[in-house]
């Protein structure tokens, strides 16, 4: 066995993805180790959300080439629910409203489905409620929200907090947060960032996808990557994010377009 393959938590190798015959990702390479926080930045339309969806298993596009290895295992053949049960979590840019499905029923089904996968008994109601109470505190979520239908009538900020709340409950090893900062005011941003920071640990990794640098003031990344036209065109440490904040994306675009 090649030890190199299992040493990364996540290894993306030359990933190419098409949506309706248009190539959106044109060869992504990325390594993520346990304990690391990676930020993926880039202008609109560069393929950031497509990358997040490809990791979580959305199937409206074709993976034409390359591999996604998670803990040494190829993810591309796994159903979204199995990726989740293997410890991958996607925080949605636009959390979906599901009228008629209560938050409590949804969360309990999710947790018990994860437990079943690990051959554990369903969590008794009392323990489940206790767990909910604990995790709610992390994101300062209003108790009323858990009595409603999933995301229905939630404000933008509540929806994003709800994503982090679910992340806390499901306790993933790899969290991918897709534009979790968009549409948040400064207080909500701080709460969401605190939530993420609280869940950091040496066994876990986080990929933060964002357009702006401001979230990275609260969650300090180990690595910053710039995605542009379907490729990672620049990688660096947190100072790269600062540079982008000051100068925008134009200088990177120029560099890339000149090379081409």
């Amino acid at each position, binding site marked *: 066995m090649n030890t190199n393959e299992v040493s990364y938590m996540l290894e993306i190798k030359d990933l190419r993805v098409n949506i309706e015959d248009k190539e959106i990702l044109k060869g992504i390479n990325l390594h993520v180790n346990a304990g690391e926080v990676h930020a993926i930045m880039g202008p609109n339309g560069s393929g950031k959300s497509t990358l997040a969806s490809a990791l979580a298993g959305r199937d*409206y596009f074709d993976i034409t080439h390359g591999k996604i290895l998670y803990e040494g295992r190829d993810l591309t053949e796994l159903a*979204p629910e199995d990726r989740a049960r293997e410890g991958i*979590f996607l925080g*949605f840019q636009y959390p979906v409203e*599901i009228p008629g499905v209560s938050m409590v029923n*949804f969360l309990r*089904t999710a947790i018990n489905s994860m437990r079943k*996968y690990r051959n554990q008994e369903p969590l008794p109601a009392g323990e489940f409620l206790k767990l909910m109470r604990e995790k709610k505190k992390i994101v300062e979520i209003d108790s009323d929200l858990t009595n409603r239908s999933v995301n229905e009538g939630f404000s933008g900020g509540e929806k994003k907090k709800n994503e982090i709340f*679910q992340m806390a409950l499901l306790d993933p090893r790899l969290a991918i947060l897709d534009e979790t900062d968009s549409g948040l005011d400064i207080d909500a941003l701080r709460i969401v960032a605190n939530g993420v920071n609280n869940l950091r640990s040496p066994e876990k990794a986080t990929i933060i996808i964002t357009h702006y640098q401001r979230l990275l003031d609260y969650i300090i990344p180990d690595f910053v990557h710039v995605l542009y036209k379907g490729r990672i065109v620049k990688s660096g440490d947190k100072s790269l994010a600062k540079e982008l904040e000051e100068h925008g994306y134009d200088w990177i675009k120029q560099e890339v377009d000149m090379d081409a």
Partner: protein
Amino acid sequence: MKDTLEALSTADKYIDLFQQNKKQISNGDPQFMKELREEAIHSFERTGFPLRKHELYKFTHLEPVFDGELSFQFTPRNIQFEDSEIFSCDVPMLNANVLTVLNGFYYYPSGSLLNELDNGIIYGSLKEAIHRYPDLVARYLGKNASMQNETFVSLNTAFSQDGIFIYVPEGLQMEKPIQIIHLLLSDKNQMVHHRNLFIVEKNAKAEVIICDHTLSPQMFLTNSVTEAYTGENSDLDILRLQNEHNNSCQVTNTWISQDRASRCQHGTITLHGGMVRNNLHVRMEGEGASTSTLGLILTDKIQHVDSFTVIDHASPNCTSNQYYKGVLDDMSTGVFNGKIHVHPNAQKTEAFQTNNNILLSNTAKMHTKPQLEIYADDVKCSHGATIGQLDEDALFYLQSRGIPRDESRLMLMDAFANDVISRIQQPALQDRISELVGKRLRGELSRCNNCVMHCQD
């Protein structure tokens, strides 16, 4: 004169059947009933069965079913029927007076044909009520259920002999809901007519649950009529739960007439049934009446369910809310035809209609047709109809939290169906129906667990 027997139309056969058995059918009938039957058979003779091209029956061609090989029964058959063994009611929170109708005849192993309470409330066999209270029954029976161009009402009026009669006099309230269980049990294919008449007088209140079941696998064709009258400022809730096997055919005709400021809710939950046609006519006769009509159909295989509804706003200031939903799988078909008729004098009408459907397969079909006829100018009316699929974004969201796709689909279907169930006014029934619907969607329900527990397949 017809040349050969083969040339007899289906309608001719039924007319002949009536003439041949008239004596038995109308045995003991008071004069008004005899006249009503004659009127009905003549009306049927004029209309015949709806032709294939008939606009109102475009998707549901019933004549071939009526032409099938069916046996008829004009007297109650002495079926050995172990009440407690075959049949036990499992509606724990539902503390109801249970009335059973077996193959169209009131069935009472113990107790009496007609329950006559001291306060004047009467419920039990319609046949018996016709005998004992001919004047009361004659005032209502057949007065609202029109025979004008209504083939199936005419046929039922000519042939039906029994069913359930409920009478709640002015100012009174039934202590418990009444649960009517229509059972079908036979050793051969059979046609059944039965008839219900509910009279709820001024300021009175009644709740009725109707369950339709088959107890044996034979093909059954049921043509039933339920007539209801709600007096001034009265309340009537009717909830019908259809769960006949998929080899049966059921035509229901429900005619509700509402007096001033009365409130009525009518719900139809179709869990199973081969070919089902539900005709619902609600007529708001008196000013300020309100009505809420609910419908939920869950179909798969080659089931066919056709909901035909007419909400008649005949007076000013009436309100109607209609909420019908369908979940259709496999090769099943559904039809919704929702007519709202606002008469010229019915100013300040508020009428709302929604019909939402989900198709789970590429071969399931739904035909939906909202039909608003508004002849008054100061009204608020709206309608909306949708046919779609389960929301892929919502499915992915649930899956991304570790919930398997099948389970995610069920959660979304449950939520979709519960949107109707949550509007049922009796909270005790909501939970029970919700559970039944959940079972139905999971494919765990072959027959109704609501009432009939030990039925063979």
